């Protein structure tokens, strides 16, 4: 019972991260039609920013977190302006450009952090929230979950209650029709990748005190984000969040009761099954040509 309850808690925490990872990827794909392979590296940059600003230069965690978000947002915006926009009509070009960014960011991380062991950041919120001695959650994780939920709530509000959000959704549904309605494609694309970058930066900054930071940490992120995106339904934000939580439960429970390797395999297997049985994913919509 203790393991079961602890696994439920672990699942919700993982679900928060998986959501942050996947939603940014979905947003860029939905609005811009670009598969951003560098998304995991944007998360990595967020984590490295915390290591540099907070752990190395002593900036308090919250300002460092804000700066990490700002930095990754800026990188995202620059990617849109100089890499994705010129290749707007060429989805393969955008994908290849994103692969280039992936390698550049990994090398940049090596340059900034050196090639020694993975970097560690001491948690700014130390201690553990204990319920009845058998259910334990570190305060840092509680903080991360709270911020993740708040960020996703803000995103939902932005997308459903603001004009800019409506523009994003309109572009995701039909770019040409949106343009004909007077929506500025360039500006909306920049906002989409800016929001995606902000979420990636936030995820990295939140993860930094809880994980090992190294230039290749983005691999996990992108694989998980792809699984969640495909299972949730490509282009569906609510599908991504739902799939993230479901996948987190599956991954956590299989890891706890069987093995981590089987958990990863199950995730990939489910992704393949979804592609075969329901290619639109849980909440994706079929699009007619």
């Amino acid at each position, binding site marked *: 019972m203790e393991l079961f309850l602890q696994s439920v808690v672990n699942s919700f925490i993982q679900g928060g991260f998986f959501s942050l990872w996947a939603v940014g990827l979905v947003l860029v794909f939905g609005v811009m039609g670009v598969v951003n392979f560098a998304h995991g590296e944007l998360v990595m940059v967020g984590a490295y920013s915390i290591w540099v600003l907070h752990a190395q230069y002593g900036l308090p965690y919250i300002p460092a977190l804000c700066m990490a978000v700002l930095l990754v947002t800026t990188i995202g915006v620059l990617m849109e302006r100089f890499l994705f926009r010129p290749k707007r009509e060429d989805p393969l070009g955008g994908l290849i450009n994103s692969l280039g960014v992936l390698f550049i960011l990994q090398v940049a991380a090596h340059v900034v952090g050196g090639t020694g*062991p993975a970097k*560690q950041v001491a948690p700014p919120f130390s201690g553990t929230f204990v319920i009845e001695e058998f259910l334990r*959650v570190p305060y840092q994780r509680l903080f991360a979950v709270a911020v993740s939920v708040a960020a996703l709530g803000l995103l939902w509000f932005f997308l459903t209650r603001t004009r800019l959000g409506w523009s994003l959704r309109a572009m995701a549904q039909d770019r040409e029709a949106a343009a004909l309605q007077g929506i500025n494609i360039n500006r909306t694309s920049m906002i989409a990748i800016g929001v995606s970058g902000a979420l990636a930066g936030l995820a990295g900054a939140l993860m930094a005190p*809880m994980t*090992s930071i190294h230039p290749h940490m983005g*691999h996990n992120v992108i694989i998980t984000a792809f699984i969640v995106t495909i299972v949730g339904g490509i282009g569906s934000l609510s599908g991504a969040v739902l799939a993230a939580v479901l996948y987190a439960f599956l991954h*956590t429970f299989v890891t*706890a009761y069987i093995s981590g*390797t089987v958990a990863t395999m199950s995730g990939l297997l489910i992704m393949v099954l979804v592609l075969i049985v329901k290619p639109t994913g849980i909440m994706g919509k079929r699009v007619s040509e």
Partner: protein
Amino acid sequence: MTKTPTSVFRQRFSRRRFLGTTLAGMGAALTTGLPKVGLADAKTVRLGMNIPMTGDYAPWGLPGLYGCEIVAANINAAGGVKIGNDTYMIEMASYDHGYDTEKSVQGFKKLVLEDDVKMVMMLGGSTVASIIPWAMRKKMLTTTLLPSDITPDTEYLVATCESHPLYNVTGVEWLADKFPEAKTAAIITTNDIEYGKQSAATYNAAFEVAGIDVVDVNFHGFDVADFAPIVSSLLSKKPDVFCMATDVYTTPIIEQLFHQGFKGKIVSCTCDGYLDVIAKTSKEFVEGLTFQFPDFDDPALTPDKADFPDPAGFDAAFNKDHAGEWSAVAWEYPSILLNWIEAAQAAGSIEPEPVLSAMKANSSPAHTFGPGKWWGADLWGLDNAVVGNWPVVAINDGKARIQEYRSVYDWLQNNAGVLKKHMQALDLRTV
């Protein structure tokens, strides 16, 4: 008293004696400001390092190059090393294979054919397996940190320093002696054959010999983003000892142990980043955490125990130039370099074959923690690994300190069969 060939060898070619002379010479040269005698006439011998300097495995490559450069610079500053009738300056030639087998072959050939190195130091695993056919044909002296790379056909491959993961038996043996109340253990390790499973088999054997029951072994991949579920699962078995058989993820795992309220003993293969662990947990929580790799400013690395020149000075020099990049290989590759010098002096030659012959002729070869023995035939079919004493390290008041030296060789003499049984149970190659 009769002098055996070994004792004569050790007396004439002791590494400590050579380095003592070298360091004294260096001190004299530096203090008098005189021109370095013989430098103009010195030849150069290149030693190769075909190692990962980028990528995930870089921490087990690059610090070793830095360490070798420090040792080589010290030797060269003192006038070089006399081998046969010549004096040689030591030059390191390196190649970054990024732990890629194809690049490893390219790097090995480049070092041998273009750089004319006389020995190639490597990390081990698949990158060594990939060069074996060519290296053995070329009769190139090659070193590995993983003695499990040795096969009956790898005559020119030796493991003279780290005998990963055999030394782990000493930590378990020490723990069982000091904490007899520990009756059960859980092991966590990576699921690879090169490091994780070798280490798990060794720990399984060590725990069996120590009378500690292993209640669970978790093999995880290299894609774990969150160790909370794995640690929860292992702790649900209520182990007295939590054992980390590989070191890639020690910090996040120990952090989880801390948050999930583990109260037992922690034993780990390595814990180079223990200061990070303390920062993420507490000094009290990691008190007594046991592992196998000392800091080199440890006062227990005395000349009678450690066959390494001025460990504290080396530690200071490394951390001055490469702060934050220390890992165990920082001293392991230099230790192999010193093994080579000793053997080359004994052989009176820098060529790989005579140097290897001199190495193998020494039945009590120098080892970082005292004289060792050639071993390996029982497990891998060839006595090409040097095993000797190894330190047991534990955290005391926030600092890693050597608790005791124990003999890996003695343990293997008594328990090689148990180890072999556990290796075979995990489908690992044995003879």
